[in-house]
């Protein structure tokens, strides 16, 4: 039963995320590039999306973490690492280059599946194959 409740709530969380990405137009690569292109006709919308999402999450998390555990699960699963290593930086550099090349990151790419056509399918397939390959190779 717990499984069903989790699945339903995570479905709604995903739906809400997809609706947010669409309303804010973050599913549109041209909109993302217009933010990253500071030397052109700069569009700061993405920064507003980030700040708004961040502020809501910041206050929401504070409220939630007063409770001892989530509704449908035994514990909050939070990353514990705090060290800054080369892997983190290299990963962020590679991700930033890929993001800047086309204006797509994982969320909007997945949300684009039903309407963004072949372009997003090319990107997603390539991303998925890389992720699976990485996970298989680095699996302990």
């Amino acid at each position, binding site marked *: 039963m717990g499984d069903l409740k989790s699945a339903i709530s995570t479905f709604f969380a995903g739906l809400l995320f997809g609706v947010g990405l669409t309303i804010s137009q973050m599913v549109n690569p041209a909109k993302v590039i217009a933010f990253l292109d500071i030397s052109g006709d700069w569009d700061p*919308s993405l920064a507003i*999306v980030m700040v708004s999402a961040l502020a809501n999450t910041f206050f929401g998390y504070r409220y939630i973490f007063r409770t001892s555990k989530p509704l449908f699960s035994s514990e909050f699963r*939070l990353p514990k690492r705090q060290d800054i290593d080369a892997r983190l*930086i290299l990963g*962020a550099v590679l991700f930033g*280059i890929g993001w800047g090349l086309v204006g797509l990151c994982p969320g909007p790419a997945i949300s684009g599946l039903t309407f963004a056509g072949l372009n997003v399918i090319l990107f997603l397939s390539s991303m998925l194959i890389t992720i699976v390959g990485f996970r298989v190779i680095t699996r302990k």
Partner: protein
Amino acid sequence: MENFTPISASVGGALIGLSAVFLMWSVGRIAGISGILGGLFTATKNDRLWRVSFLIGLILGPTLVSFWNEELLDVTFPVQGSFLILAGVLVGLGTQLGSGCTSGHGVCGNARLSMRSLIATATFMITGIVTVFILKHFVGG
């Protein structure tokens, strides 16, 4: 800044934040898309269902919006073809190596005041900006 859309950006961003809060409140998980997706391939059976249902919701979100405003689904790709494949590899590898993307580090990690997320966010913002600058001024397009 003629294309600046502060209201839809604030509303959309707030919904993304609410989604992250709701996911933490209900199942205690970080709303990081690259992590949710990547974990799908190494997760145990018990850990898989919530990931799949989140991703199905994420895919259906735009359809829900389209009943209200179809124009929001008109998207433009500044580059095409092999660039998309190359970018897919970089984003796939980068998010797995760096343990996160715009959502996991940019929203959830920064909301937890994680230093790793702050550094990662600053790094991919800067490299993204530099990449667009180089493409525009030296590669053309």
